[in-house]
């Protein structure tokens, strides 16, 4: 297991460097020019050149890249030549737009994304797995058809549609819930767990409608496959109770692919639920990423891309470990 983990760790570091380099290169090759964007409609070539110096974009590409990456290992001076300041380790640079430390920007955004992610994950896992199991156990009956039909609708609804409909119905029309506010970042603030719950309920539901639909389909099909296996027939013939057959034997075997899905989805979500955060005005990582990309804010874009990649890679590693625990053949491989 130790060598398995070591291999994964080294692969993760290499992958992160590759991703950082690709992101940096794409940004440089892309059409967006932060220096030109900074001075607007009356931008003379001289002003663009001055802005390029101020943003540190006048240096060679590799110098810019290694200067940026060196911040991951030590503190260093960053900022415009006329206004340099020490950026403490781990330094992800300063925002082109606001001159804030990028670590501060991410630290501010992350609690919002965690709030969105944790509730949504619980909701969609419970609903998705629960309804998937129910549909599998009621195969061919009305309940099954209702759940499968609902899942088909849910998986077809993009987040902007679900989100706006939820806002329109529960906030604007029925006035049952407040508009999401950026004043509540966690359940430990002034609003308390109750205020936090109400604030994030609609984003959770919007995400859960989409994700639980996928989980229902996967859970149902895997359970149906597992319930038809020989060992299940053996379990039944041994006279085990229905509950024991379904949950102790069937679910453990049938839900392994769901664990994979869940791990990867959580990893992706921690990198920012872009659409959900944008629609519900949650200033999380996804929301920040959209603004950074639109305004050509390279340091913020780089940091969020690397962070999202980090979460996904870590989620992959955790899934692999979980698999290795569940199925010893993976360790050998």
């Amino acid at each position, binding site marked *: 297991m130790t060598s398995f983990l070591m291999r994964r760790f080294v692969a993760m570091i290499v992958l992160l460097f590759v991703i950082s380099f690709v992101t940096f290169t794409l940004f440089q090759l892309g059409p967006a020019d932060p220096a030109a964007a900074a001075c607007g409609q009356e931008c003379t070539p001289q002003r663009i050149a001055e802005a390029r110096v*101020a943003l540190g974009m006048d240096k060679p590409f590799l110098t810019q890249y290694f200067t940026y990456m060196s911040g991951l290992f030590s503190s260093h001076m960053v900022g415009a030549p006329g206004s340099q300041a020490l950026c403490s380790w781990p330094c992800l640079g300063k925002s082109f737009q606001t001159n804030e430390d990028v670590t501060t920007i991410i630290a501010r955004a992350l609690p919002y994304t965690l709030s969105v992610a944790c509730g949504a994950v619980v909701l969609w896992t419970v609903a998705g797995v629960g309804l998937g199991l129910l549909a599998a156990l009621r195969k061919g009956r009305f309940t099954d058809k209702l759940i499968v039909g609902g899942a088909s609708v849910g998986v*077809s609804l993009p987040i902007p549609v679900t989100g706006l409909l939820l806002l329109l119905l529960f906030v604007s029309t029925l006035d049952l819930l407040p508009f999401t506010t*950026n004043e509540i970042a966690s359940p430990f603030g002034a609003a308390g767990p109750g205020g936090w719950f109400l604030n994030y309920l609609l984003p959770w539901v919007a995400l859960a409608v989409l994700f639980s639909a996928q989980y229902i389909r996967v859970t149902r099909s895997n359970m149906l496959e597992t319930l038809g296996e020989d060992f299940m027939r053996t379990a039944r013939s041994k006279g085990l109770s229905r509950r024991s057959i379904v949950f102790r034997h069937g679910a453990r075997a049938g839900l392994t692919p769901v664990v994979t899905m869940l791990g990867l989805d959580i990893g992706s979500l921690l990198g920012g639920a872009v659409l959900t955060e944008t629609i519900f005005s949650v200033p999380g990582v996804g929301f920040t990423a959209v603004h950074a990309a639109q305004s050509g804010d390279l340091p913020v874009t780089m940091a969020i891309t690397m962070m999202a990649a980090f979460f996904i890679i870590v989620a992959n590693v955790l899934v692999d470990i979980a698999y290795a625990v569940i199925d010893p053949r993976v360790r050998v491989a």
Partner: protein
Amino acid sequence: MNRSTIAAIALTATAGLALTACGGAKPTPGDKQGANADAYAPVTVGKGFTTKGGNINVLMSSDFQTLDPGNSNYVQTANVGQLYYRTLVMAKETAGQPPKMVPDLATDLGKASKDGLTWTYTLKKGLKFEDGSPITSKDIKYGVERTYARDVYTQAPQELDSALADDSYKGPYHGGDFKGIDTPDDQTVVFHLKQPYAEFPALVSRSNTAPVPKAKDTKLDYTNHPLSSGPYKIKSYDRGRSMKLVRNSNWDPATDPNRSALPDTFTFSLSTAQATISQQLLANSDPTAITLDSNGGLQASDAAKLNDPKVKKRTAAGLLGCTDVLNLNTETIKDKDVRKAMALAIDRAAVQVQYGGARFGKIAQSYINPAQVGYVPQHTDLDPAGKPKLDEAKKLIKGKNVPKKLVYGYADTNARYKNVGTVLQQNLKQLGIDLQLRPIPAANYYTVLAGDQMPDIARSGWCGGADSGSVRTTIDPNVGPSLDGKTYGFSNIPRYHDAKIAKAMYELRGTNGTSEELGKKWATLYDQAMQDYPLVPLVRSYTSSVVGSKVRNAQMGYFFGAIDLSTVGAEH
């Protein structure tokens, strides 16, 4: 964003536009009873309200790029800036009219020397910063000096700097004395200009002349707490989330008749999605809410709701100084008759529909308008209702060498501009021109238009420049010559250069006189230039902004394109 998402948004937007277009023939926001009512008259919500107190909650979809007056060329910052900084002269907003220049920190609009090369300002007495320290002429000079430090400030306003006589100065962080301004005593500021500039009071109304004490300058971090010289100061600022402004006890209203400063506080929510902003405002979920987002935060699909009487009485509206035009690249479409034929063939009424219909803009016949100083009547053969004149267009191009293929470039973040291209494709096909559409990254849009990649046709907008009340600051940047007068200027997108007109404009730049008399000359030259059809005027913006039911004195800023924060109040 996946395909189904894009499709859903496109469907919603199209449905909204279609609804708006259907109702667009009779714009209602400014429509008063009676046949002769001006559909584009300004509408102010709760006009005449004078009660102090309460809070205004400003909903915004993103944080201010900067609050530093020395590092901002954004209208949003200028609007909120009225609350925490003052300048020598203030551009005072009145809905539907270009801003009027009024003295602010200075006692008057400035005294020009006979040759027009020196402008002198005297500060009012008793002016203080929020910390109680006096505002002196040196603080004004230092504020201007900072805007020269372009190795620090990428967004520093440049109009004033371009006019002052010290091009070699690199800002206060590199040492050296700035020769563009003298401060003979604590009350007097003397500006030295390269050339006479009749609209100079407008230049010192820009944020460059907001006072900044040298000891308080924290360079790029100054944006987190600019020292207030206005009626409010920043109590808290949580970047990307919220900001709160409270009264500045060291602001003396006796020195400032321009800002009513009615609410006790302003709160800003800096990360509210536009869709949420429009829903909150339409539903009146916060009776003290307003927005500074463009188009009042309204989505195209919300437009029909503006006809609801309950919403209508909470909607401030007005014409802005912003006009959109199509630039015809005169280097690639050289024949002026071909350009004119193209202009005549364009269905500008159909283009207006792409802007959201008549409610979102008025068909424009010129970049300049009669409310501007120096305006003289302009001549054009374009239909005032925006309908194409295809027969005339076809006659003009008979026997001419008409290009078979042209390229229209558009900013890629707004579907509207692509849709305008689709209209143009259909129109120009009638002249045998195959128009190709080319997306351009929005962030670099104007840099591309100024460079080698300028397409044959491109849209641009202009909101009046340094002085939206004067014709000069629209004409010179858009069709004027380069600094040496030998070619076209860097922001002259159609690359229009007529040697005779360029020479006259070049000479006019150095001429001493009043804004009125010089403006008439600029406007006459512009009228001559427009007979060559380098530009096709499209739509002049008319913006509506829904406010909460307790918001009063909400007027649409002509320059800001949003509710003017210096006059708004709240019933409480």
